[in-house]
């Protein structure tokens, strides 16, 4: 991610709005800069972080847009890998040894007969290593001495500029204290990443989706903390996985001496580098959808099958059932959750969620191979259907007819 000082010059204010001065991806000058930097970066494999930073400064020369160029360089380096160089001896142990007998000088004198060169040779001899290798090891544990071992993704100028723009938008969120979003799809990934970045949420259903306010545990108790800015920034690419969304953040930048509004939606020219989960979490879910499609898909039957389109809100967590059945004419709905092969602890949590949901329109399809006794499922509010092999669509539909509301 970009540091605040690199991002700041491209954050602007208009009225009470925070605007982000993105780089034009199709601009010839920026494309050339990006292309130059990519070449420069690929040449660094095997060289040190210090050498890379010097190379960037040389490339910059006296350009006034140096903070932007340094930002582009940081995006490249952040996606690469740096490792400490291999050394003939542990650097700290070497320093302890080499510095033990006080200052030395290039020329000896009466009081300091041993010269620097002589000390180096003597200690190298004692340690039985090469003198040049020993000099190289002396400060090899400094951050600047780390070696580029992998230059990361196969960048194109366009990809670099696009990614830079994403990082710029992320950095605006460092100073945010509250983010509110409207989302209309991709609920599962959205909540999966929320959990991953340890953010808290408050969600309410709205027409076709959810209004979700994001912050952290201490936020409700203090006035506008920016403690979770880094987590909110880290989360932004997850929002970009959704097809249709809007975001509104309140941001406090000391330079502007006031709280600003920062808004973004799905029309922004940004792409996520986060991985979207596959269509189905398990083969059982895929099989179920395929079986339904084969028997009752498209125009046939009274029910339409959709995937993870409803979020059951459970206080500080959510449950997102695998499928929903919607009646084509009267709009009645029932939810379906498939319980396949899972770890006992996962099952326990899942059942806890089902119970606290208290929804009698929620149907559990349990594979008999699952280690769940009928006893454990007794006080589940909706219906529970057991199947030895594949769920029988006819039986499921009968349950849907009974439970839908």
């Amino acid at each position, binding site marked *: 991610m970009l540091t605040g000082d690199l991002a700041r010059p491209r954050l602007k204010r208009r009225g009470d709005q925070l605007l982000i001065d993105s780089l034009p991806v199709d601009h010839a000058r920026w494309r050339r800069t990006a292309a130059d930097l990519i070449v420069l970066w690929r040449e660094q494999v095997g060289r040190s972080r210090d050498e890379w930073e010097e190379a960037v400064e040389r490339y910059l020369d006296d350009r*006034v847009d140096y*903070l932007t160029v340094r930002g582009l360089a940081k995006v490249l380096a952040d996606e690469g890998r740096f490792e400490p160089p291999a050394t003939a001896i542990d650097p700290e142990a070497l320093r302890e040894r080499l510095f033990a007998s006080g200052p030395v*000088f290039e020329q000896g004198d009466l009081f*300091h007969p041993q010269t620097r060169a002589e000390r180096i040779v003597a200690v190298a001899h004692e340690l039985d290593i090469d003198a040049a290798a020993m000099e190289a090891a002396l400060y090899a544990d400094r951050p600047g001495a780390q070696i580029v071992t992998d230059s990361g993704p196969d960048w194109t100028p366009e990809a670099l500029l696009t990614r830079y723009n994403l990082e710029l938008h992320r950095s605006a969120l460092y100073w945010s204290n509250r983010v509110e979003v409207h989302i209309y799809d991709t609920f599962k990934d959205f909540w999966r990443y929320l959990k991953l970045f340890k953010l808290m949420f408050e969600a309410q259903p709205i027409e076709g989706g959810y209004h979700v306010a994001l912050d952290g545990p201490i936020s409700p*108790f203090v006035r506008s903390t920016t*403690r979770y800015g880094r987590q909110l920034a880290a989360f932004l690419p997850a929002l970009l996985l959704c097809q249709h969304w809007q975001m509104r953040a309140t941001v406090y930048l000391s330079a502007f001496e006031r709280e600003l509004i920062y808004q973004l939606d799905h029309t922004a020219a940004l792409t996520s580098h986060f991985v979207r989960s596959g269509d189905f979490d398990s083969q059982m879910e895929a099989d179920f959808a395929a079986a339904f499609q084969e028997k009752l898909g498209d125009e046939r039957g009274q029910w339409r099958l959709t995937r993870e389109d409803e979020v059951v809100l459970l206080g500080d967590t959510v449950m997102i059932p695998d499928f929903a059945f919607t009646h084509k004419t009267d709009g009645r709905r029932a939810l379906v959750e498939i319980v396949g092969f899972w770890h006992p602890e996962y099952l326990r949590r899942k059942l806890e969620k089902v119970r606290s949901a208290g929804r009698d329109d929620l149907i559990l399809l349990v594979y008999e191979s699952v280690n769940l006794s009928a006893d454990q499922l007794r006080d589940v509010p909706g219906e529970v259907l057991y199947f030895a092999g594949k769920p029988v669509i006819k039986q499921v539909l009968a349950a849907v007819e009974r439970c839908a509301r």
Partner: protein
Amino acid sequence: MQPMSDTLSFQGGTLVISQRPQSDPPGAPFQWIKGRWRCEGYHYPSLPRLDLRDTVPRWQRLDCMLDDTHQPHDYQQEAVAAWEQAGRRGSIVLPTGAGKTFVAIQAIHRANRSTLVVAPTIDLLHQWYARLGNALNIEIGVYYGGEKIVLPVTVTTYHSAGDLIARHGNQFKLLIFDEVHHLPAPSWGETALMSPSPFRLGLTATYPDDEEMGDGRWQIDELIGPIVYQKRVSDLVGKRLAEYRTERIRINLTDDERQQYEADFAIYAGFFRARHLRETHGAGWLRELTRLSAFEREARAALLARHRILRLLAGCAGKLAALEKLLRENIHEQILVFTESNDTVYTISRRHLIPALTHETKAAERKRLLEAFRRGEYPAIVTSKVLNEGIDVPEAKIAIVLGGTSSAREYIQRLGRVLRKTGSRKAVLYEVIARDTVDEGRAQRRRPKARAL
């Protein structure tokens, strides 16, 4: 299945009751937020009795041996006793140099519970690390940007305390804030609010008055407890007198250096003259120059010229030669070499094979270096900005400053603490500056206040 009993847990600086429905309020201070009953961590010791499974405390006993040969002063013992009497909550106010760290060590040892110490700077963090490790004879954790190791006794900075407390706040029964007058700052007070630690100790020489805490956000009394013990300078010992003299050494740039310097200075000074930056922006001139450099080519050129000048002056041949001469002359004394340029520190370290101490040096190596220097095993150390105000720098007879910073306060406090006379011989501070360069101006700005010593 039996319904699970309600559980009280620690979550990111808050206390949360699981299961309990909205219809069954547990009473203040809990509030119904995001589907759970919640409150701030700091309410933990004063919560009403609730029928819950309490998973909050993860603190532990220390059972370590105190290994500190210092005999406590009366006032130090009184301070600890007063704090204990007050239920191990509250602040102790003692003048600088009166041994606040020592008081804290006594308090930790007597409380015998896992402790988090919050210090204002990384330098002070390192000092606490060394002092606690020596006195308690256990391994000490450090948590800041560079290292993150959480142990039963851990030291962190105000800056990193929020992250640490959000994750591990319930592992510490005692929470100590060094220089507690910093606590009212907006994001720093939050840390005390997030912690469930029942024992709290604030240390400072200057307790802020109500007006300074005036934006109404955090009151130290509320977060830490009241002042439990206070002593003024006049109550203790007399002021220490200066124990060193200053010698200034002027060196010449080489012809090449002079040529480069003049060329860069012309660019830099030219821009300043044309723009009257000092007149229009006063002390903020450098920030303004940096701002302008992002869109004006002349400003960018001036900023680059300034960087080149500073780099040239930090490592110029004359200074390195003068340093070599001073090292040779004073080889039997303990010598501290200061330069504000990190690169120059490592150049000197390599050149003379003496230890370097910078912000890159990790806590354990730093502690080892300073202790070896104190024992006289290392006659010389070269360092950048890290040996600062309030740090336990070992005593030295000779300080050599190459360049140095323009901050008069830092300069005086840094050296006043380092240099001690032995017998009748005063310690010496050598200041090495380049003749006819900005060094002279920078040194001049330091002089008037330096005389106040």
